[in-house]
């Protein structure tokens, strides 16, 4: 994403090569163009650009992709720490 990058080396995105059937759904749904399919297999082009939205893992028919999706807002994470539960926030923008 031009002009924007967040912290490196934190994304939880993983792709299990053996399970990938190269269907291309991940390439279709990723809003940051992280995947590319070539020769029947998907590849991660830029893991650090991942925002962990979970679209790829959700739409992978063979569960080849794993990522820990969540809410990326500080208030939600703080609520989660304080209440000891999953981060949550009401957002509507």
């Amino acid at each position, binding site marked *: *994403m*031009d*002009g*924007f*990058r*967040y*912290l*490196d080396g*934190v*994304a*939880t995105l993983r792709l299990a090569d053996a399970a990938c059937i190269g269907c291309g*759904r991940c390439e*279709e*749904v*990723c*809003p*940051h*163009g992280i995947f590319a399919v070539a020769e029947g297999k998907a590849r991660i082009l830029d893991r650090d*650009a*991942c*925002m*962990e*939205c*979970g*679209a790829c893992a*959700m*739409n992978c*028919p063979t569960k080849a992709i794993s990522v*820990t*999706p*969540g*809410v*990326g*807002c*500080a*208030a*939600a*994470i*703080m609520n989660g720490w304080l209440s000891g539960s999953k*981060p*949550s*926030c*009401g*957002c*509507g*923008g």
Partner: protein
Amino acid sequence: MNGGCCAPPTSKTVPCCGGGSLPMTVIRYEDSYVDGQVETPAGPVPRVHSRIESRDLLGRWKVRWGIGRDRYRVRPGLYALGAPDGNAPVLVTANYKLTFDIVRSVGAGLDAWILVLDTRGINVWCAAGEGTFGTEEVIRRVAEARLSQVVVHRRLILPQLGAPGVAAHEVRKACGFSVVYGPVRARDIRSFLEAGMTASPAMRRVVFPTMDRLVLTPVEITGSLRPAGWAAVGLFLLAGVGPGVFSLGAAWERGFTAVAALAAGILAGAVVTPVLLPWLPGRAFSVKGGLSGVVLAACAVLWQRGSLHTPAALALLLAMTAVSSFVAMNFTGATPFTSPSGVEKEMRRALPVQAGMTVLAGLLWVGGAFLR
């Protein structure tokens, strides 16, 4: 095949075939966007127009300032745009009125069906993250609207940003409709349809232009009003502490300066930082926010240098930087490129620094009163 429309009924799905009478659809004309109805084999479907009227604009403005956003909803279900027939595309969207308005306005001149999911008035992306724009809701609405009787094809066009909540292969398995992910932005729907339902790489990427960042800032401000109000009360009380134990005059005079600094810090974090986001150095939002805060604070201190003692000036610099840094960190939730893992890592590092700066600012502020 007409698809697996007869999936085993569960508490969450509604069987759409195999008996039962046609649904009694009541067209609600009090909804200002409904101006007629279209007859279908599954009963009448309300028809929406594509005009954006002054009340829609007022509603949009109120939502941007956080007024009644949870109530800004459209009744879920199937709607007709233009004069769609059995071959017309089906666009799936959220029942957040702002989103619905965009879809019907960009669809001016199109003949299409709009299937509105119940996302409790939340936009597509957030709702997908929360799971309300989700696989089960799609399946349920397709069945409830008897979509398999309304259209002859078996295809749904979902917004790409709904993908975190919807498993396309599960939808197909459960109701026979295949999912095509449309463009990220509703304004590309027309080009997407004209290109035979293919999205160009540019249509598939999220971008975050200045205007998009700017429209998100009012809600950042209104969101910080309540904690800021309490902080202001605390600052007025703190400002009165001095050699004479407590002075109402000092509370007013010094309190006013402190609250102005708080307001400036919030402004730096909630407006200046989001707008200047791509140009502020650093990756962490707390760093970007801290920088806008310290620059703004330095200007304020220089401007007021005649009336400020060194400890008070230092306190203002530290406090405004900390407030701006903290508020800017919260903007991570509104951006389309920060990851939860990253935000958590940033917070673990930034919070102790912000807290330390605030405590130090408080000590300097109160201590300064005794040195005067």
